[in-house]
């Protein structure tokens, strides 16, 4: 059924920290690794060792450069960015499990659906005709057609891990979250205001991607932290000076300066 549930009991989703993500692509690789042998058809690659490789992936990392025009968020010696100095932000992107998911309502077959119990958006691959309209309706590029199976693939929030009692409890979270070496990805119930992820979002000022599209994404992103201003302060205003050198270093400085002067070298 491709009508959306009026509300979901839980809002399972991810919180992605753009401050700590180092862009290593470990989550991307582990996602492919787990999901190619997990829920649904394998994530196929086309021409994987040839000249023009491509394939279906459920999670991808873009890297952006953000350049402030003027210093912003000025604190005590800390700014979110220095005018003209680019900040590099690694940006992981997978399905945001939107509350108002257009990919679900456009589906003509009922293959796309949002689960009432936990809010996960899934594709029933036996029903999918591979028309691609859901991918057209997704602003985030979260859905990719598997070229071999002819069905739409998307993040399942590792539904075959998070409820899997065969796994150790610590492994019952999405593969991307479990593998992230920088702890930049967090998994939990964003519908529960007291959950760890909800508190994290509140404390760090988590935000939605493209709120103007009206999709009400569940996944949230945490902004980069402010950092020391590169344009002022001691860290960046060091000039070469030996004026206040004392002790042994001062003696060496004087001795070397003197010998240079004695030889008449400039």
């Amino acid at each position, binding site marked *: 059924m*491709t009508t959306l549930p009026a509300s979901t009991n839980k809002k399972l989703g991810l919180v992605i920290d753009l401050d700590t993500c180092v862009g290593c692509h470990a989550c991307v690789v582990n996602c492919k690794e787990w999901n190619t042998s997990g829920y649904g058809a394998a994530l196929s690659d086309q021409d994987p060792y040839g000249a023009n490789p491509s394939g279906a992936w459920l999670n991808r990392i873009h890297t*952006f450069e953000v350049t402030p025009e003027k210093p912003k968020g000025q604190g005590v010696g800390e700014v979110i960015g220095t005018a003209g100095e680019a900040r590099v932000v690694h940006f992981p992107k997978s399905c945001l499990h939107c509350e108002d998911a257009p990919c*679900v309502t*456009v*589906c003509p077959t009922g293959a796309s659906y949002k689960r009432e119990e936990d809010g996960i958006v899934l594709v029933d691959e036996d029903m*999918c*005709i*591979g028309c691609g309209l859901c991918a057209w309706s*997704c602003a985030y590029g979260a859905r990719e057609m598997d070229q071999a199976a002819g069905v739409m693939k998307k993040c399942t929030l590792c539904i075959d891990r998070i409820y899997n009692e065969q796994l150790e409890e610590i492994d019952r979270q999405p593969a991307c979250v479990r593998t992230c070496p920088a702890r930049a990805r967090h998994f939990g119930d964003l519908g529960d205001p007291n959950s760890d992820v909800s508190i994290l979002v509140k404390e760090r000022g988590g935000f939605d991607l493209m709120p*103007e599209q009206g999709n009400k994404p569940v996944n949230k992103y945490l902004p980069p932290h402010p950092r020391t201003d590169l344009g002022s302060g001691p860290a960046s205003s060091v000039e070469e000076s030996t004026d206040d050198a004392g002790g042994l270093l001062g003696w060496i400085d004087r001795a070397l300066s003197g010998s240079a002067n004695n030889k008449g070298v400039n």
Partner: protein
Amino acid sequence: MHPALSVIAFTSLSGAGYGLAFVLALGHGNPGATSTKIAWFIALALITLGLLSSLLHLGNPQRAWRALSQWRSSWLSREGCFALIAYGPLSLLAAMSIFGDSFNLFLGYVAGILCIITVFCTAMIYASLRTIPSWNTRWTPATYLMFALTSGTLIYMSFFGRAAGTDSNVIWVYLSMVFLILAWLIKFMWKRNAVEAGYGKSTMETATGLGGIGQVRLLERPHAMANYLTNEMGFRIARKHADKLWRIALLCGLALPLVLLAISLVMGRAGTLFQVLATVSFLAGVFVDRWLFFATAKHAVSLYYGGDEALAPAE
């Protein structure tokens, strides 16, 4: 957006088919005349060809029947449902004309309304997508409906208007000219809106949520080669030649048909040839225009790939 030939053929052929069926369903053409019988056959053939070609771009066409189930929420499903429902009265009317030389006006009105609804649903598949602001406007269904009507009128006029015998051919020529101008006027409004629409309110700053820091630029893509997303949403070959192709569409779709139709009025019996040429030229113009409709559409996901600057390279 990637202009898949199957989808362009689907929308323009089925549009022309429903347009012609609409004209016939309103009772034009002597049901006993051979040309009317051929007209009914051509209308149904165009509709069927269009619908079949839409199945070509499916990953699993054998499950296409499932697409009839979600009419509550999906315009694509509604399109499928109404296309099937419309087949009922349309094939009945066609059979009445072909085998019984007869016509039923009530059935005709039902069929006519179903033709309009089906074309409207086709347009709404595209017009309902918030991710593509140039499509997400009421001008999209307006252009689809008007182009379908104009296609149908031109085909009817050029092939059957005279021979079918119930109407004066001259009236159909004038009607075609009016529809031609109206159709392109609506298209012009659509295009003006599309140019302004761009990515709508979305920018690379809203897409990344990093606008609070400063201006965002793509430093590195997630993947070295093209993928489904860049091929499907980031198409830009036509954008390079969009202005030229738009002029070709206007020339084939508007200017030439008008001139040819005007000539046909003074050519007597040979005028039919010019009317056929006008129709063929218009349909070619529609095809180019439909290609541009897809190829120049900007999809929000492009913003994650650098917006206009960094889309899939033209090959």
